[in-house]
């Protein structure tokens, strides 16, 4: 008997949900084997991670705090990916957003809150947009590959921030640490209750709603879809491809810039090196695992938040933090492998030669 795979007419709806869930479970089992090999009890560790990340108010708050930048960057990235523009530069756009937002309180520390925060928001988004527009312009003008340019600009962005933090913006009262001065209270994003969860969460959720509307039912979302599927057809239909490329990249960068702004203003309260532990990169995985679906991005980002926070917790057990990276990698591996089951169905031939399909 030979099992074979047959392509489905459309990905099965049940499978699109079941496959990621099963894949994540398999990934955890897979990693459990490694953990067991190192002589630990994997399920105890997993339980401790869960408990640490979700079992207390503090854990929940930390998990959400980690998930917010992943959501925002993931959303930003998904926008570009939908048009087959491979914006790998979320990390740089994030830093630029934080950088431009920081400029406001450092230069005008006495602004009232209702001017300060909107200005930081706008500047942060504008800087992220600009950082993405460069590669977009090069692509439109000379077909320069955006993967390379956005990726390289990440390093430029990070080093630019480092330069300012180590140099002109270093806090004179900061004992020579590479930090800017603390922001005045007017430059801090409001948080919920006593937690560290800031209004960035609301912004992310608002964006989710906006994206759903755009992709489901808007003229512009339709254009993005057509351009992403076939540029030649889009041109034939009279769509302005160049304009849309610039627009989509700018918006993608702006959302990543927004992530940087909310992080610096909602969490750090000052600009510092290493503001992002690689959110911009992890968000690529988030967006991909979520199949660019906005709601799924929120869920996957939440899951990655749990992993991150759980990872910190289990370090107290003497487990290296790189375990989190291992689990992330395994999840990606299994989900991509499992995608096959959403797109194909398994057919078991029976003895009589005719074949029965298994849904």
């Amino acid at each position, binding site marked *: 008997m030979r099992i074979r795979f047959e392509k489905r007419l459309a990905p099965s709806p049940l499978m699109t949900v079941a496959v990621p869930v099963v894949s994540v479970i398999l990934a955890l089992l897979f990693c459990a084997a490694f953990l067991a090999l190192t002589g630990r009890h994997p399920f105890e560790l997993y339980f401790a991670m869960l408990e640490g990340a979700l079992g207390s108010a503090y854990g929940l708050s930390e998990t959400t705090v980690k998930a917010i930048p992943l959501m925002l960057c993931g959303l930003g990235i998904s926008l570009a990916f939908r048009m087959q523009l491979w914006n790998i530069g979320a990390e740089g756009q994030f830093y630029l957003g934080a950088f431009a937002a920081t400029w406001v309180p450092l230069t005008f520390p006495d602004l009232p809150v209702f001017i300060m925060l909107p200005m930081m928001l706008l500047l942060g988004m504008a800087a992220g947009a600009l950082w993405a527009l460069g590669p977009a312009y090069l692509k439109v003008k000379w077909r320069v590959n955006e993967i390379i340019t956005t990726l390289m600009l990440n390093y430029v962005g990070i080093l630019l921030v480092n330069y300012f933090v180590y140099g002109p913006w270093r806090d004179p009262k900061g004992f020579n640490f590479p930090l800017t001065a603390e922001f005045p209270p007017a430059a801090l994003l409001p948080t919920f209750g006593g937690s560290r969860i800031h209004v960035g969460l609301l912004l992310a959720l608002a964006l989710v709603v906006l994206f759903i509307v755009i992709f489901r*039912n808007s003229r512009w979302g339709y254009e993005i879809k057509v351009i992403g599927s076939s540029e030649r057809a889009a041109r034939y239909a009279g769509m302005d491809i160049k304009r849309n490329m610039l627009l989509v990249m700018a918006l993608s960068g702006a959302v990543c810039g927004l992530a940087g702004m909310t992080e610096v203003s909602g969490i750090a309260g000052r600009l510092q090196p290493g503001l992002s532990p690689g959110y911009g990169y992890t968000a690529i995985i988030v967006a991909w695992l979520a199949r660019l679906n906005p709601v799924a991005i929120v869920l996957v980002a939440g899951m990655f938040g749990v992993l991150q926070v759980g990872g910190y917790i289990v370090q107290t057990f003497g487990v290296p933090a790189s375990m989190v990276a291992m689990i992330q990698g395994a999840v990606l591996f299994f989900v991509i492998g499992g995608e096959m089951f959403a797109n194909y169905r398994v057919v078991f031939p029976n003895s009589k030669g005719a074949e029965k399909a298994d849904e």
Partner: protein
Amino acid sequence: MLKPIITMRGMYKRFPGVLANDNIDMDIYPGEIHALLGENGSGKSTLMCVLSGLYKPDGGTICVEGEEKRFRSPRDAIACGIGMVHQHFKLVEPFSVAENIAMSGQHGSFMLSTEKMTADIAELGDKYGLAIKPEASVWQLSVGEKQRVEIVRMLYHGSRVLILDEPTAVLTPQEAAEMFKTLRKMAADGCAIVFITHKLNEVYELADRVTVLRGGRVTGVLGRNELDTKKLVWMMVGRDVVSQYERGVMPEGRPVLEVQKAVAFNDMGMYGLKDLSLTINEGEIFGIAGVAGNGQRELAEVITGLRRVADGTIRLYDEDVTNSRPADMIARGVSYVPEDRLGVGLVPELSVLENLLLKSYQQPEFSGRWLLDSKAIKERAAKLVKEYKVKVSSLDQPVKMLSGGHLQRLLLAREIAEKPKLMVVVYPARGLDVGATEAVHRLLLDLKAEKTAVLLISEDLDEIMKLADRVGVLYNGRLVGEFPVEEADIERIGLLMAGSGTEGGEADAYQI
């Protein structure tokens, strides 16, 4: 009596929503050229994909020389000597011809001996009159050359049964004639050849036997001396097809499109159009005859705003629209059925619904400033699919799964629904069955009756003579002759198409 090399019995193949092959029996004998005819969507490609191991049948048996076989992949079929050249070629563009040929084989060692392969390929090519260069990269080849590569590839892997899916649809008449010679030679050597076609004249010219499909079933098998057009058409479409249309009176409308001394470059940066001028009036069908590659694509694209003219003017209803953007031309009522249906005219990955929306998504009936009105869109799509008899299993089905003929119907439905003032159609009947061709022709005549100006670019002279009011011959980027259809003479047009009979025709060839 000769034994069949292939016997297929009771073949079933089901796709979600359609039964593409319904209990088909077919015998193929060595040394015969076997034509497979049938309407669009009747399951010809599907049946042959099953025979060549690309699709798995849901039922039925395939025997090769009396021995039952089950193919798990095209590789298994190739091992049994069955090779297929698909409607859409399956070559890897950046690779060389030799590499492409090597790829699908399973014999030979781990290391490839390039020199030996190259020599073998060249020898095979010589033997059957298939001129190919084994070292060339595939992307450099013309469509005709790519097809030769596909054929040589199958021969190289020892095919004794060669299946060709609509091989002549993409060839110039000269290339087609060359290919027929090759096929005859191969049949004389004992190969069995199955070729799918919609052109009856090719069947008469080439076929030893004909199998006709309709709706996934065999409706008839005829030998060479039983061939009869009326019979064949009946088997294919189940009714008579009109071969001559009422043309109506020669229209006297005002000019819709005026092209004056247009000069344009092709994709390779060489002259595509040279000083081309033409005028089309309301309610007139202007036929452009010519061998493919003489500026047809450039002409269509210049008029629809997809290609810039370097010199000259284009006027639409007396307004200068030279080098307008495609969106402007659409807004002015120019519809376009391009040569490349899948990928330009239609987006393969998107659904029927989304493809029908392509030209109208900005119109107030279907969208506001920002949002689309999905209800209105769905209603219209359902109406169009019904009205133009496009066979789809659902509006959400990706269009790449439609059969060739239904793709074209879908495209025409959308373009005609725009109520165009000017319709540019390129090779409208390519790949269509006789019934669908008639339907398309009627649609074009209906457009004419509604005073639309139609530019009909075709490589099929019969089609032009049947439909057009005036005929122009395109050669080497120029219009080398223009006649009212009553004065047009096939002989003379043929000569003009081949480039003789024009002053400077030969000299021009050097400029390109």
